[in-house]
């Protein structure tokens, strides 16, 4: 067990608030790891030690959890973390080609970051948007019905500081750290932005209305 000294009193207070959500403190480990990522971009040793201290568990126990889940990164990722779905359906519908295009265009491989720190690339599994295939997630925002060219544009935008908006998400794309804060359970007030549903989600409803 270590100390949480690397974090500011404000940050420690937020950690305490996260812990207070749960009947038992250890349950807070996942949001705390998201929160550490919102501060540092990845799970730092300081973060592991602070969580160990806050939850009164061993650092090894924190490591065991942080390395189990793919969203927790042991190395820094880009400000815009691009995940191309390469699970079967998206891959077949074009995800494989999109991934190759992204790789070539960004000049990076799997789990690598561009030298400017702007973009990193990951092969992701099914993200529950198969009716919008091929799907790309950036900082865990939906980019639906992608093509190789749309992803090239996306990468260019990200590197220029002007990424396109998600298909179903906030009006403008937030950074990796900002979105990690959302995953830690802290509101950014953007729930009201973006569409309530994309067309495929409404397809059955529209047909039903048309027929009724």
């Amino acid at each position, binding site marked *: 067990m270590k100390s949480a000294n690397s974090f500011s009193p404000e940050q420690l207070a937020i950690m305490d608030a996260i812990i207070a959500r749960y009947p038992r403190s250890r349950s807070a480990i996942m949001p705390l790891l998201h929160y550490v990522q919102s501060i540092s971009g990845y799970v730092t040793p300081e973060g592991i030690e602070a969580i160990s201290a806050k939850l009164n*568990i*061993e650092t090894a*126990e924190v*490591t*065991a959890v942080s390395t*189990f889940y793919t969203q927790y990164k042991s190395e820094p990722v880009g400000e815009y973390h691009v995940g191309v779905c390469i699970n079967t359906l998206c891959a077949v519908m074009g995800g494989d080609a999109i991934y190759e295009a992204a790789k070539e265009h960004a000049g990076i491989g799997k789990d690598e970051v561009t030298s400017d720190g702007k973009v990193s690339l990951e092969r992701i599994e099914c993200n529950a948007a198969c009716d919008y295939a091929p799907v790309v997630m950036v900082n865990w925002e939906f980019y639906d019905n992608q093509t190789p060219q749309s992803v090239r544009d996306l990468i260019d935008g990200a590197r220029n500081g002007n990424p396109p908006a998600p298909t179903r998400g906030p009006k403008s794309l937030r950074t990796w750290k900002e979105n990690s804060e959302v995953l830690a359970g802290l509101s950014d007030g953007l729930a009201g932005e973006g569409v309530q549903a994309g067309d495929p989600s409404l397809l059955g409803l529209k047909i039903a209305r048309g027929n009724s």
Partner: protein
Amino acid sequence: MTPEALTEVEMITVVIDGFEVTVPKGTLVIRAAEKLGIQIPRFCDHPLLSPAGACRQCLVDIEINGRAFPKPQASCTIPVENGMIVKTQLTSPVAEKAQKGIMELLLINHPLDCPVCDKGGECPLQNQAMSTGRSESRYEGVKRTFEKPVAISSQVLLDRERCVLCARCTRFSDQIAGDAFITLNERGALQQVGIYEKDPFESYFSGNTVQICPVGALTGASYRFRSRPFDLVSAPSACEHCASGCSLRTDIRRGKTLRRLAGEDAAVNEEWNCDKGRWAFKYISSKERIATPLVRGEDGELHDASWPEALAAAAAGLKGKRAGVLVGGRATVEDAYGYSKFARVALGTNDIDFRARAHSDEERDFLASVVTGLSTTYADIDKADQVVLLGFEPEDESPIVFLRLFKQVRKRGLPITTVATIASRGTKKLKAKFVPVVAGGESAAISAIADLTEKSVILIGERLGETHGALSSALALANKYNAKLAWIPRRSGERGSLEAGAIGNLLPGGRPVTDAAARVDVAAAWGATALPSEIGRSTSEMLSAANGGELDALVIAGVDPLDISASALTDLLNTFVVSLEIAHSAVTAVADVVLPVAAVTEKSGTFFDWEARPRSFEKAIEEAGTRSDVRILSMLADELGAPINLPSVAATAREITALGKWDGAKPSFTSVSGATSPAVNGDQAVLSSWRLLLDLGTLQSHEPNLAGTSRKASAHISADRAAALSVTDGDLVKISTERGSVVLPVVVDEIADAALWIPRNSEGSQAIATLGNVGGVVVSVVKA
């Protein structure tokens, strides 16, 4: 569960491979099969760990009342039920294929490096691959590789390629030791055992994971590449380090101990031991061992001597002289009996004491009046409604007692209270109620404890005797509630030495020296005309008598003077010293005659653990040619013309048994009124200390891998004191007495403002040597 409930466990009859077996309800299928002699292969299963069902090697077919499970079940996770029919690999082709399939999968990523693996020859994977595996692998793919091996502590190495992810090690560390320093990390095919990189696997119990690893993934640094199992001869043995009483297995190759393992004893250590017991044995084969008798010549130097020469020299120095005996705390019962008889018969004195440490007359009376009659055991801990720890840090001072307490805390939330200066890591793991005291204030704190019952257990550590009146208060507490009491010394020989009468107020079997009938009893058995009737001197009294010229000679065995006091060694300078020792030491350096004795592996004997449970062991190494103390004492007594007639350990044991225990009245205990903590001013503090399990103890020498996992010394002070000194965690403070000082990093802790705690005998923190005391004294504390 109440004892009554334990006796009423429902019995269940199941059929396994056509044979009926009746076992208690709750028994797992895999163990019911064992009762029939049916061995179901397994890796993750371990009877003392919670079932995991992870390796899937033990799959069997099961049906209950005619309803079959649709697929094979892990027999290590399923309890027996009435009407259950089990078919193992012996009678079910499905189970047999399932097991073969699992074995094949376990091996696809295994390096098959058995020829260079320490586990080869005693490896469950190797053995079960022979019984359950295919002769040829069908795997043509790429094997998973890892860097190998990685040191996860200075004493444990991890080879992830060999690991079958059974999680025995991680479950042990979490469930049994309470040290979740190793965990399963990553996931899927990349799952691997690991540590947090900055925090090594420094658990006092880490060696058990090496022992229960079913493959060669975890190996001990000190044994790695040293031997093959088939070159080893194993001897059952007993641990000489502490009073926990662990049963051990000692593995010998050509006269040398290569490793020690925990032995099995369900009533004592179950299947575990601590790392000190496992790895601290290099002292036995150290270069400092004494090979021949030594006699100090006129040149002032020690010279090799023959046994007759040395015995003659020793006898010459003792004959007709006023002599005393210091036994040390590590004698076997037989050896202690030898010293006891030697003192009375050959030296004609009751000046004998086994307490080579801080001690008091109150303690001596307590030992004679109370401890000799105690019968508290590990089973009482299992059944206790609460446990109180007084002057006792189980994890450091009797680690198997700690494991037992932790087991009950984990299993049923056993409430524990500890009276101590700081809440140790062990205290936190036990979730104990911490009653902070300043040294000297123990009596008041003990007297304030309430609401015990006759099912409560009070565990008293030997350190409680360091505060006047504290043992009296503890006894009063036990008597008030009729609670069970136990006295847990730190060393393996103390309880046996007490029973053997190696103390000034007792003869063997708990017979009071002051009781004429008791003396007559013993004198008759010994063929002596009379035995001395005065209570003998204590260790410290003997030392000052030696210094003051009131004693002419001392026979000293296994004593480090710095365990007693800062002045103990100088007290010896003007007296004739006969040293019975295994290795060169501070005492042999000033001794006039040195008689080498056998180390624990070289002799047979018996330790009494804290329960007074005999822990007998046979000689593990035949070739050593050394002799147990009692044999040498017998020769020396012959030389003195006052034979004690104890030619062998076996003969001694017979005599002890024949003499039996005293059934007469015990001396009554006179209560001592409680001390209070000394007053301190601002930059002063009252010192407290205890020995960490792993420290600079003599028997831990020559084992750097073990020493590498010891806890680092630091000075524990309160937040207020830290603020006053303007220090925080890690800053250095200087702690001084008139005698000297130590400089240690600070840990700001939950501790009384007036108190200060340091380890007693750790690197950089040797309380007696530097400060001249171990506790209860006022020291000055300043920022360094």
